[in-house]
């Protein structure tokens, strides 16, 4: 029998997921040493990456990208061109790996399914998943019923992954029980009619949580509630993903794994635009939770413009001369 993630949560919180019990666990987390955290993150960003490692890192980054378009102006055509790019990122070099997933709004999932065709599937098998943002993304300001319906719609349309936002209003006003219940309810809505379930990514929107202590608390709350992934940001709020915040979330994931044996994924999203930045994240992952986390089921980059920069670097490595924006698509 598989152990449900709630079993892990019960072992930490007790039989009753009351707000009082949750707070007892979350308030018991040690405070974050902000200076130490930022110094550690800055230190991880100074690693020198040599050519062969860089070539490996660049292909790895591409295979971990959630190629994203989350605009009010998204059209079916835009989703189709995004899918085309995800399937064949660099037409001048067919050895370029595919991206891990496409990340779109719920109403665009059907178009993404059409566009991917037979290449829609598990990124572990070299195919491309479809992630949909749900629960009144990006603000999360609507009723529970609407959020759950939003989630069910996206799953029914064929989404493999759901990116939900937590209720920051409830979190910041101390109603942790409400946040917890909502994540659990969305997790329930991810279950398909055949009993399988879409993966749930929980967006903490760290730019609105104000303190590192809050980020640590929210990470644990999301994992206790059964999130398969914890994700930094929507990309609509500045600051989005930063290296210290991602490091902190990776540490939470590492500690959770040590206590429960369960592996939870991390997805920094927003603000990662260059291969140089992305490589810093790879270093941080492998030095914090280990290299086994560098797979599409445990680590993702939420990005749109990152892919072009990575492709330029890839072309530089393969041709030996600098490439330019004329040699990648305009998204």
């Amino acid at each position: 029998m598989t152990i449900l993630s709630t079993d892990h949560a019960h072992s930490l919180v007790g039989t009753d997921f009351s707000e009082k019990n949750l707070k007892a666990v979350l308030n018991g987390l040690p405070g974050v040493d902000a200076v130490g955290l930022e110094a550690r993150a800055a230190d991880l960003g100074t690693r020198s990456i040599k050519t062969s490692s860089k070539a490996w890192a660049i292909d790895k980054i591409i295979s971990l990208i959630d190629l994203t378009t989350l605009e009010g102006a998204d059209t079916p055509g835009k989703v189709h061109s995004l899918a085309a790019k995800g399937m064949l990122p660099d037409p001048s070099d067919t050895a370029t790996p595919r991206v891990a997933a496409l990340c779109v709004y719920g109403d665009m999932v059907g178009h993404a399914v059409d566009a991917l065709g037979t290449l829609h599937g598990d990124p572990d098998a070299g195919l491309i998943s479809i992630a949909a943002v749900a629960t009144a993304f990006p603000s999360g300001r609507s009723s529970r019923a609407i959020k759950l319906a939003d989630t069910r719609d996206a799953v029914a349309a064929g989404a493999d992954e759901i990116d939900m936002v937590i209720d920051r209003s409830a979190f910041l006003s101390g109603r942790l029980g409400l946040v917890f219940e909502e994540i659990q309810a969305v997790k329930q809505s991810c279950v398909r009619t055949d009993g399988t379930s879409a993966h749930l990514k929980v967006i903490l929107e760290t730019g609105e949580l104000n303190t590192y202590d809050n980020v640590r608390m929210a990470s644990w709350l999301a994992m206790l509630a059964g999130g398969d992934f914890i994700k930094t940001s929507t990309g609509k709020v500045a600051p989005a993903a930063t290296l210290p915040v991602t490091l902190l979330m990776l540490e939470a994931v590492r500690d959770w794994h040590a206590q429960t044996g369960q592996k939870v994924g991390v997805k920094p999203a927003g603000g990662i635009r260059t291969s140089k930045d992305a490589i810093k994240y790879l270093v941080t992952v492998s030095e914090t939770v280990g290299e086994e986390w560098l797979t599409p089921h445990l680590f993702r980059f939420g990005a749109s413009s990152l892919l072009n920069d990575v492709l330029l670097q890839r072309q530089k490595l393969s041709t030996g001369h600098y490439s330019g924006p004329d040699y990648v698509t305009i998204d």
Partner: protein
Amino acid sequence: MSRLAVPKTYKLFIGGKFPRSESGRVYEILSTKGDFVANAALASRKDLRDSVVAARSALSSWSGATAYNRGQVLYRIAEVLEGRRAQFIEEIVSVEGATAAAAAKQVDDAIDLWVWYAGWADKYTQVAGNANPVSGPYFNLSVPEPTGVVAVIAPQASGSLLGLVSVIAPVLAGANTVVAVPRFDAPLTAISFAEVLATSDVPSGVVNIITGKPAELAPWFASHADVNALDLAGAGDLDWVDLQIAAAETLMRVLPPVEGVPAASLARITAFTETKTVWHTKSLI
């Protein structure tokens, strides 16, 4: 009472900022007598790459500005340059071993040349463009448009300021953005000139100056897919045929080396323009 001199750190000029070389390298600038004058940053290919990125991102706003506005910005540079004559004369005397009179003449010539090119900024299209004669009820117009990002190797044996101005000014007048490698053994005036640019309304990234060895940097320019034209004015001592071959890979425009300082000419402006020809109906029926 004697005063302790405060030596100046000469750095690169990339995207409106004055960074040190990414490589951390510097080289010594000596006077003609062999005395130490200053350290200058020795640019690497990554500094070159960053400069091209800066020049590319500055291109749309610089080429999109009105020609009149570009001309005014170029005049402004001449004004600020005039106000700092003394500093340039001192740098030329100390490094190039010129007499004060010769140095003053070089600075004046550079300012005059700059003003000459500034004047062309809103006039070269009228001269180089044309309404072509056609036998039909439509207009046919040819207009010169900027080539894009231009890399230049400044003259390596002539006056350092005049040489730099003679290759940068026509590129800017034609609404291109530029990455320049100044004279290797006398780069001080180039970096002081960058300070003039930084305080003269020139948008950041329009001019980038990287001090370094032309032999080391030129091949990276020639093979760079995001450089649109390469002016080899000061590359006479290099194997510039190979550079032309590398540049041909990406259909880059190349101007061959010249002896001394390139003379002021409209041809140097139009060398970095592309002619666009369009037709338009004479009237709507």
